[in-house]
């Protein structure tokens, strides 16, 4: 018992370290490109530099994502290995760096230096293109989420789309093309079987996934991530997982059918969330739906033949997809960047503000105040904090599932989607539509 | 902005269609929940179709009403073709009951798809918008493809379905291409707006109008199986289950025809000079090729298939004239031709069910063994040939030819001349069958026929009933040429008010 607590403590320390590295680096770079450099350019060259300043600002989301993805993957792989070790009462990687904190960095280096092998008879063009197609959507696809997770920070507002939700869904359907392509081009029957399974699975589970998201959008009345997150401001009861505010309007005087509808709506939304989690697991090929790469039967499926940097790209994309799916759920269902209890958010912000004032209040002579304010905006920090907590909680939950559940068989997999999930999703769609009006 | 009362009013007018949708859902689910009561599906279908047809017919008295802001119109033309489609559907379902044993476990789905095809024709009859037109045509094509492939264990049926699918996909592409140009030129999908814009464009004639007309007409011609878009027809007609062939030869053609009438004479009316020439060419080619190739067919179904191509040629004469009389003649022709053709196919089913043969030579001497069957088939065939015994078929042809003469243009005269010339081989190949059945010695197949069975549990009752209905219809139609022609004329004159601009905008 004691050792488990000890291990959890170690894991928490490691997480803290890595999150500081990731978000410190990402925000530092974003800030220097998007705020510091433009300010310098504008002060030096005035109006003529405006174009370049804006160009730099427009580049911020791209740079931020490009930096975030590899760093985040390093942490996620490490966290997963440590968590799996924890769940199965083992030690996990603990040699490289303090407590094995840099194990995945070393792994990544090793992977990049490995020889790249192209199997004989492979279709070279497709073989090379497959990892790119698999990976590109996770970079492109995450963009509209940036505004919502950063509390609509001005640097990230331009990438917020009015059709953000639909955009992510469309883009996140692309990776399966890469899987099929890679599996076919490898000229290996295991790879091909993995690719075919993956395609069947992705297409089947995309339907209930889409339906569950559509239902949430119906509840929120918009496809815009920022608005969806804003609608859930307030408290836990306003989150979409509890019916998007249906419960808050209830009072003593409300009629019984209104109460019943609100409760039912909340129940439906909880079911929706479960539906989403299941389908999302299948979409990103996580256990118990990891048939496309089932190590024990298909020698890791579609990426059997890949090695070196191409394999690394597959690996990177897979974990990034998991993270995107978790963040997506955090924004869609779990209130985005808003705290679960009323007052908590304000307390966070004002506390932070006080802290900043105390630390940097004296530094104004060099006009540092403006820089600091733009560097650490209390409202943004609070939002990002809650998003981080929620997203990584979901990521860890996925690890827990991986450690717990066995893999499904392919026919069970298809049955489960078409005969259980799709009808459930349709029923929920209709139920939520009507209940929303009744509340 | 349209308000909710408009919708409720529109839905009230769409009741027959909604009823058909309910019947479709019923057919789709009935087999699943009550497999032991399977045999009631066709009966329910027939009643649903008759009910919906009667409901539609009840709307004949109301004038034209535009629904959904101009997307769909309920006028006399809609009603005529809609109820015709329902009647055809009912007769085809009736025929299929004699065929159900070959459909295996797919009978429920078969009836359901038949209802879908009928519904698609009903909607096509009233569409006044390109989007609705496209969705309707797609539904019709898709259900017809599936119906042609309903005999899964029969290779010819599979071939028919595949051929139909591939060629229908190609024509869908050309149609969509043409419609996109039409939309690009007129920036509207509503017929009325297109009409107004085409009027403006008529001042500066351009090749692009001809081009889009060719594209659109190729798709319509495909549905009508007019030469040169007929390549699919004979193989599909031969391979598909015979009731489906009957439906394809009249139900789906009625859908294509009503689309052609409405689209060409309202939306594209200002370009009539261009399209009537193209349609005229299609008509001439169809009459010549259809009739000449039909001459050489040894198979009864194939002969009917080619002759139906020829009939499309006759029908198109009426369309070319682009006059009230021409359109009325078309309406009359379609009603009468539908009955004759369905009757002939019902007879073919009866004969094939008993003998397993489809060769024309095998029909010889049928009169000795099955006098009533031979008589029914003979009446249908004589009418198809346009001979005046009883005179419905004759009048149909006469009206169409007259409208061609009335147009008093070179094109009209040429068309009628070709039609008269090609009627001669038509009379020959239809009468050949009749004479064989009546006069010749029985063929080997007919000799083996036992005495007829006459009880209701016989699977032959369905096609037999269909044949009786058709023959009765032909005789009644011959007695009531004037009332039918009045209806046809009223339906044709309904086309004019749809040219008003879009209501509510």
């Amino acid at each position: 018992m004691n050792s488990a607590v000890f291990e959890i403590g170690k894991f928490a320390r490691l997480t803290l370290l890595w999150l500081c590295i990731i978000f410190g680096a990402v925000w530092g770079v974003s800030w220097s490109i998007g705020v510091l450099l433009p300010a310098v350019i504008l002060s030096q060259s005035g109006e003529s530099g405006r174009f370049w300043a804006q160009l730099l600002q427009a580049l911020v989301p791209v740079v931020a994502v490009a930096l975030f993805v590899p760093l985040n993957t390093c942490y996620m792989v490490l966290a997963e290995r440590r968590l799996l070790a924890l769940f199965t009462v083992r030690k996990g990687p603990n040699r490289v760096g303090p407590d094995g904190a840099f194990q995945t960095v070393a792994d990544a280096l090793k992977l990049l230096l490995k020889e790249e092998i192209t199997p004989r008879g492979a279709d070279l063009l497709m073989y090379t293109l497959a990892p790119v197609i698999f990976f590109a959507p996770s970079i492109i696809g995450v963009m509209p989420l940036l505004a919502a997770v950063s509390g609509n920070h001005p640097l990230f507002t331009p990438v917020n789309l009015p059709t953000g939700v639909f955009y992510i869904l469309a883009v996140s359907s692309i990776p399966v093309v890469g899987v099929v392509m890679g599996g076919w081009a490898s000229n290996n029957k295991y790879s091909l079987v993995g690719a075919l399974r993956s395609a069947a699975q992705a297409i089947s589970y995309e339907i209930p996934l889409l339906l569950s998201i559509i239902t949430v959008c119906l509840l929120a009345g918009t496809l815009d991530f920022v608005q969806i997150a804003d609608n859930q401001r307030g408290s836990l009861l306003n989150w979409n997982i509890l019916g998007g505010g249906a419960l808050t309007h209830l009072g003593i005087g409300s009629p019984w059918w209104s109460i019943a509808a609100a409760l039912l709506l909340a129940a439906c939304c909880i079911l929706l969330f479960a539906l989403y989690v299941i389908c999302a697991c299948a979409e990103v090929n996580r256990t118990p739906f990891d048939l496309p790469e089932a190590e024990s039967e298909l020698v890791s499926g579609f990426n059997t033949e890949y090695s070196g940097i191409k394999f690394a790209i597959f690996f990177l994309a897979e974990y990034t997809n998991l993270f995107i799916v978790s963040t997506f759920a955090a924004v869609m269902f779990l209130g985005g960047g808003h705290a679960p209890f009323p007052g908590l958010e304000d307390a966070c912000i004002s506390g932070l503000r006080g802290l900043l004032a105390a630390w940097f209040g004296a530094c104004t002579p060099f006009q540092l105040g403006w820089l600091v304010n733009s560097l650490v905006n209390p409202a943004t920090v609070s939002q990002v904090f809650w998003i981080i907590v929620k997203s990584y909680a979901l990521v860890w939950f996925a690890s827990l599932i991986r450690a717990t559940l066995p893999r499904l068989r392919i026919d069970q997999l298809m049955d489960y989607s078409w005969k259980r999930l799709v009808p459930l999703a349709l029923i929920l769609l209709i139920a939520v539509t009507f209940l929303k009006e009744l509340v | 902005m349209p308000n909710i009362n408009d919708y409720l009013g529109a839905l009230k007018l769409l009741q027959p269609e909604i009823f058909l949708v309910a019947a479709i859902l019923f057919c789709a689910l009935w087999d699943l929940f009550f497999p032991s009561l399977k045999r009631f599906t066709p009966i329910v279908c027939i009643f649903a179709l008759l009910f919906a047809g009667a409901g539609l017919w009840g709307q004949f008295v109301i004038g034209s009403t535009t629904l959904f802001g101009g997307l769909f119109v309920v006028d006399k033309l809609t009603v005529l073709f809609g109820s015709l489609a329902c009647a055809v559907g009912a007769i085809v379902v009736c025929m299929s009951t004699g065929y159900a044993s070959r459909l295996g476990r797919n009978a429920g789905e078969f009836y359901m798809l038949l209802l879908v095809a009928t519904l698609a024709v009903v909607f096509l009859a009233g569409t006044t918008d390109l989007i609705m037109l496209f969705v309707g045509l797609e539904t019709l094509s898709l259900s017809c493809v599936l119906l042609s492939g309903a005999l899964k264990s029969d290779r010819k049926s599979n071939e028919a379905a595949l051929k139909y699918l591939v060629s229908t996909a190609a024509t869908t592409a050309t149609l969509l291409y043409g419609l996109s140009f039409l939309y690009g030129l007129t920036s509207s999908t509503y017929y009325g707006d297109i009409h107004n814009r085409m009027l403006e464009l008529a001042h500066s004639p351009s090749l692009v109008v001809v081009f889009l007309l060719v594209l659109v007409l190729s798709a319509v011609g495909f549905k009508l199986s007019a030469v040169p878009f007929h390549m699919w027809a004979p193989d599909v007609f031969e391979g598909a289950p015979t009731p489906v062939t009957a439906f394809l030869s009249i139900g789906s053609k009625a859908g294509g025809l009503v689309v052609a009438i409405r689209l060409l004479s309202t939306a594209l009316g200002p370009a009539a000079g261009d399209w009537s020439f193209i349609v005229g060419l299609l008509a001439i080619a169809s009459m010549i090729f259809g009739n000449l190739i039909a001459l050489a067919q040894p198979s009864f179904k194939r002969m009917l298939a080619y002759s139906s191509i020829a009939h499309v040629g006759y029908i198109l004469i009426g369309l070319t004239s682009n006059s009230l009389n021409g359109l009325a003649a078309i309406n009359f022709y379609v009603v009468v031709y539908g009955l004759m053709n369905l009757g002939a196919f019902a007879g073919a089913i009866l004969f094939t069910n008993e003998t397993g043969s489809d060769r024309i030579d095998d029909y010889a001497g049928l009169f000795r063994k099955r006098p009533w069957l031979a008589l029914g088939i003979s009446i249908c065939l004589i009418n198809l040939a346009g001979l005046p015994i009883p005179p419905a078929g004759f009048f149909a042809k006469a009206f169409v030819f007259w409208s061609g003469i009335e147009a008093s243009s070179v094109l009209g005269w040429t068309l009628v001349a070709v039609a008269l010339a090609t009627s001669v081989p038509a009379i020959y190949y239809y009468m050949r069958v009749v004479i064989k059945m009546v006069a010749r010695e029985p063929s080997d197949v007919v000799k083996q026929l036992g005495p007829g069975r006459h009880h209701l549990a016989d699977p032959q009752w369905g096609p037999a009933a269909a044949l009786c209905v058709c023959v009765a219809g032909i005789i009644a139609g011959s007695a009531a040429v004037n009332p039918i022609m009045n209806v046809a004329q009223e339906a044709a004159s309904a086309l004019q008010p749809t040219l008003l601009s879009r209501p509510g905008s």
Partner: protein
Amino acid sequence: MESLNLLTALAHVNVEQGFFYVLAAIAIPLAYGVVFDRNVIRSGFLLIGVFATIAGLFFLLQAQFLGLSQILIYGVGITLVIVIALMLTNARQETGMNPALPANVGLASFVSVLVFTTIYLSLRSAEDWPLKNESSLSLPPNIEMIGKHLMTYYALPFEFASILLLAALVGAVMLSKAEPASLANAGDEAEQAVDGTDRV
């Protein structure tokens, strides 16, 4: 709002037209590849590329919703199913065959040139295409418009499409439903026997 300046600058240098030509330059070779590639599976993947570039054209016209649906439905959903179906065929065997004879190639290219000329001439012949001259970058998002139209003016075809899809689904079930063994390969008698037992 800060980026508005950048957008106007982009519109000023006619970046839109540039993008159009870039996308066209990608799409056309890909489309040719679909036709000419000997390997059907590779053709399938190229088709996905064609659809993706067409989605890009939609984005260029500010039709985000259409572009995204194009990717979601055509680019991935439908084409992928086609590709999978192709994978189940024996593609290697077919790459060895020579499908087009030289004589046919001549005829086919003649017809293609003829068709192209006709289309080109007829498109040039109309002078008054109703065009909009404003930059599409300045248009408002149109997803709401699409939704509104689908639910009001186009409600009927939208609903009717559900019947189309129902028919397609039922048809798919019909075609893929397993027949009793006796029905699949035996003659008429066997069929009737099965039917008889069904009715009892």
